[in-house]
């Protein structure tokens, strides 16, 4: 029975993808994530399924981490499916969306139950490629470019991961199961590949460039699962492939800590500068993934406390997944039909939850995390507190942007989507009370309070002090200098932005031109029927590539 359920977790979405062309498929796909929730509830931890005849030998199973992941991923996919069933209308394009949605779901849920490197890679690749279809779904030029950029980064990450898992198999004599792979630490180069490969998925700063535009163009249910469930696959990859508790990985842990903290700061600052709510939430995700990265780094750097830290990190991931997914779904509702009162209330609550206000899941998750950190991690605690403060500011700005956008309406609100979303918000509101202790729920008061205070002050100041000069301010003594100050700051910001945009545009056009020129020349050469040029081309390519390979060969001796 358990075997059957574990198999259904990824088989059902895959099978439904084949049936996605049928008429009521929109509603049938809602049952796809149910086996995952069933597995999380019913299958005992420690069960496993072995399929040695599949691919290169597949091991499936459920452990504690996997169970939490299945719970929040399954829930998020369920709500997103309900939302999508209600909101996506146009016929053949809806079918295409459903197929990619189900394939991504199969990959995501499959990699959670995978207990060996190749099936994990299979789920990861399937998920990565299927998301392309979700991002490219709107037929605009912008979507195409965002999807292409996403695909380039994803393929790069997958290639690095392929090399990493082949090297791991080599290190362990061909074995693929995680139980074997975790028995000894991976070689240094492999760790680097794993960090970068999964770091691309987790949008570490520097590897995050695909994320903002992808989140900006994809349909709301897709972005919800992308930011909620799928981005966490990177974290799961680290958890599976990097065994904590080994002294060799301590320095890597410290590197991850630095990367994580950079992510927290970068995400927060970049997010505050955004003018579109989707981009702001995207950068907020980068910031929160920084928190998860720091947690992972702490687990590696302090191996004795590793299991406790990892438990807290997973809980934090669950909290973020549900809240961020709900935020994007709510934003989708606003984009369709403006700001209804229920939607506004829900968004305010979710914003507070993400910031970690008391009595929300954020407080619970944050206090779990801080409690798990060992004595030496004082700096990290301080940074986490600052991050709570910054997130509150970020969320205040988010609410402000949503408020500004409240008039834009494109189509009436499907009731099913609204109900599904409200259910999710209710779950997020209630579950902390079921599992948290009282003092955990009251954590985080100071940073959040300060954040709310600062946001309120900024809002009042913006209202009081006008942007434009009026007859009142012309005369007043304080009005003019303040006005000048504001104008100067605004001008500086505009100039900076202009400079940045100009530099980027120049670089892009130069890059495009060079690319075009090289491509033209190569096409010319390859199509020319003049034997001389063809030999020239073949010969120079032979010499060039041969020389390169020879160099690498010599250097590798």
């Amino acid at each position, binding site marked *: 029975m358990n075997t059957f359920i574990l198999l259904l977790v990824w088989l059902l979405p895959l099978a439904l993808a084949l049936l996605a062309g049928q008429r009521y498929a929109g509603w049938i796909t809602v049952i796809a994530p149910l086996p995952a929730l069933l597995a999380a509830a019913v299958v005992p931890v420690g069960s496993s399924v072995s399929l040695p005849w599949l691919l290169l030998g597949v091991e499936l199973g459920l452990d504690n981490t996997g169970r939490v992941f299945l719970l929040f991923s399954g829930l998020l996919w369920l709500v997103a499916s309900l939302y999508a069933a209600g909101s996506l209308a146009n016929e053949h394009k809806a079918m295409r969306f459903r197929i990619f949605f189900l394939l991504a779901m199969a990959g995501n849920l499959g990699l959670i139950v995978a207990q060996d490197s190749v099936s994990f890679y299979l789920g990861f690749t399937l998920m990565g490629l299927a998301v392309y279809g979700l991002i490219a779904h709107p037929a605009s030029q912008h979507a195409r470019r965002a999807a292409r950029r996403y695909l380039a980064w994803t393929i790069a990450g997958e290639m690095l991961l392929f090399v990493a898992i082949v090297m791991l198999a080599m290190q362990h004599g061909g074995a693929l199961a995680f139980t074997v792979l975790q028995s000894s630490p991976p070689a240094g180069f492999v760790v680097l590949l794993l960090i970068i490969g999964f770091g691309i998925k987790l949008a570490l700063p520097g590897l995050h460039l695909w994320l903002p535009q992808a989140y900006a163009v994809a349909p709301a249910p897709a972005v919800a699962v992308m930011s909620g469930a799928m981005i966490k696959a990177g974290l799961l990859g680290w958890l599976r492939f990097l065994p904590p508790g080994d002294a060799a990985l301590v320095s890597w842990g410290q590197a991850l800590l630095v990367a994580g903290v950079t992510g927290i700061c970068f995400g927060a600052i970049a997010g505050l500068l955004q003018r579109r709510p989707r981009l702001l939430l995207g950068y907020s995700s980068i910031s929160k993934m920084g928190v998860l990265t720091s947690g992972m780094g702490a687990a590696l750097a302090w191996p004795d406390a590793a299991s406790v830290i990892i438990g807290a990190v997973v809980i934090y991931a669950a909290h973020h997944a549900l809240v961020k997914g709900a935020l994007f779904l709510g934003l989708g509702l606003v984009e369709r039909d403006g700001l209804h009162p229920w939607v506004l209330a829900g968004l305010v609550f979710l914003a507070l939850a993400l910031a970690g206000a008391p009595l929300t899941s954020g407080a619970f998750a944050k206090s779990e995390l801080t409690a798990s950190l060992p004595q030496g991690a004082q700096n990290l605690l301080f940074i986490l507190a600052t991050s709570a403060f910054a997130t509150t500011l970020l969320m205040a700005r988010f609410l402000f942007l949503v408020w500004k956008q409240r008039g834009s309406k494109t189509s009436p609100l499907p009731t099913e989507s609204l109900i599904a979303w409200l259910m999710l918000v209710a779950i997020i509101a209630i579950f902390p009370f079921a599992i948290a202790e009282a003092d955990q729920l009251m954590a985080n008061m100071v940073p959040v309070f300060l954040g709310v205070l600062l946001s309120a002050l900024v809002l009042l100041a913006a209202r009081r002090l006008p942007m434009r000069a009026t007859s009142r301010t012309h005369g007043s003594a304080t009005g003019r200098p303040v006005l000048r100050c504001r104008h100067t700051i605004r001008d500086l910001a505009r100039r900076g932005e202009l400079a940045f945009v100009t530099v980027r545009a120049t670089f892009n056009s130069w890059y495009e031109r060079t690319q075009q020129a090289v*491509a033209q020349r190569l096409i010319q050469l390859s199509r020319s029927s003049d034997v001389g040029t063809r030999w020239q081309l073949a010969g120079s390519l032979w010499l060039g590539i041969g020389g390169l390979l020879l160099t690498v060969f010599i250097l*590798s001796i």
Partner: protein
Amino acid sequence: MNWDTWLLVLVVASSLLPGLVIFFLREDSHRLRTLLNLAGAIFKLVLVGILIWGVFHEHVYETRWTLAPGLDLVLHADTLSVLFVTLSTVLWLVTTVYAIGYLENAAHRSRFFGFFSLCVSATVGLALAGNLFTFVIFFELLTLVTYPLVAHRGTPEAVRGARIYLTYTLGGGMLLLIGTVWLYVLAGPTAFVEGGVLSSLPAEYHPQLKMIFVLLIIGLGVKAALVPLHGWLPHAMVAPAPVSALLHAVAVVKAGAFGIVRVVYDVYGVNFTDQLGLLTGLGIAAAITIVYGSVMALFQDNLKKRLAYSTVSQVSYIALGTAILGPIGTIGGIVHLVHQGIMKITLFFAAGNYAETLGIHKVSEMNGVGRRMPATTLAFSIAALGMIGVPPVAGFVSKWYLGLGALEAGMAAWVMPVLIISSVLNAAYFLPVLYRAWFRDPGPAWPAEHIPAARLETSAALLWPPVVTAILALAAGLFASAPYSPLEWATLIAEREYGL
């Protein structure tokens, strides 16, 4: 009737005899021709089934004709021959069905199917060849028999393409013959024995052996499209789609790669080749071809030309696997022989479908074709993803073994980057095609809609072959570790080669 002797002759004859009869059929004896074709193919399939069973149980099948003292024509079935024979037979059956549908109402069908059958006979003959002499004979036969297939349409480009093809392959054949004769002078009749026969020769012969190796590889490399000997391949794309499919997946290009595998493993022996320092050179040539082919494929707008350069690149994976010392690399190279065959034939079938049904010859004309021809495009997508190395399609398994083998042999520093760069380039020239097919809206009209949309998107004989081979490609990967998979057979070959 001694089965052991006659089985192999029957396997070759089962396509030779129908082929010879088909030559004399009238143009319009459509049913008799189809019957002969399919009967021959199915009969051959049955015989090959018996052969597989026998070889698996270490039965010895051999046919030997002495043409002159010391010069024997030998047909011998070992594990490697059985692999190639099975691939050829299965794909020939599928291609026959496809060709029947493709060439409906075309001219000179009897001539076409006659040479088609002869082509398969030659391929099966060289697969079953038991020594280098027999191999060379069938190899040359293959050249001569495929020339009329390339020139089938009779247009000036077709004739020109065929002439270029003939020039290259006859030149290569000459070098191959010189190498074989030289080797015969040095070492007597070189039968194919697992582990090679030349390692026992005294050391003063080694420089000559190296020269002979280079000659043999160049001769075989023309057919196997090693750069810079690949020039005939893009020109041979003027042939009808079934011919391109067969040539590129099964017969000609694979025969060249198969020959390279034979020379390295069963004539020289892989350890001896490594001793002579020749494996690295072969590996570098393969690596250059892999990257070069993929780069050139990026710039082709003509779909078949793009697939042609992709073939150039992918077939060299087999040579690369051969150049990696160790059983795992060997497994990777040999299993890719099968996997690449199945995936490539799917791609060519799909390309032929687009051309026959909608008049599409270029990638830029493929906008929105996924909606008009979903099954064909799905088959194309599966095969393309396999080429890129996405699990669980078969190509991933080959890449896995090649990578693992390279790591084991200590060659990973340059083999891994080649594999990765090649995968990325494959993605770069296949994914845009998939994007156009699935995500773009079609133009106002297709270039030339020959077959209108009815219950099935195109005629049944054109639709089922790519669907079947795509399913096979998926199954070869999904069930790679199950018994009777190509991977298991390749493992068996490697075990017998290395004496494990």
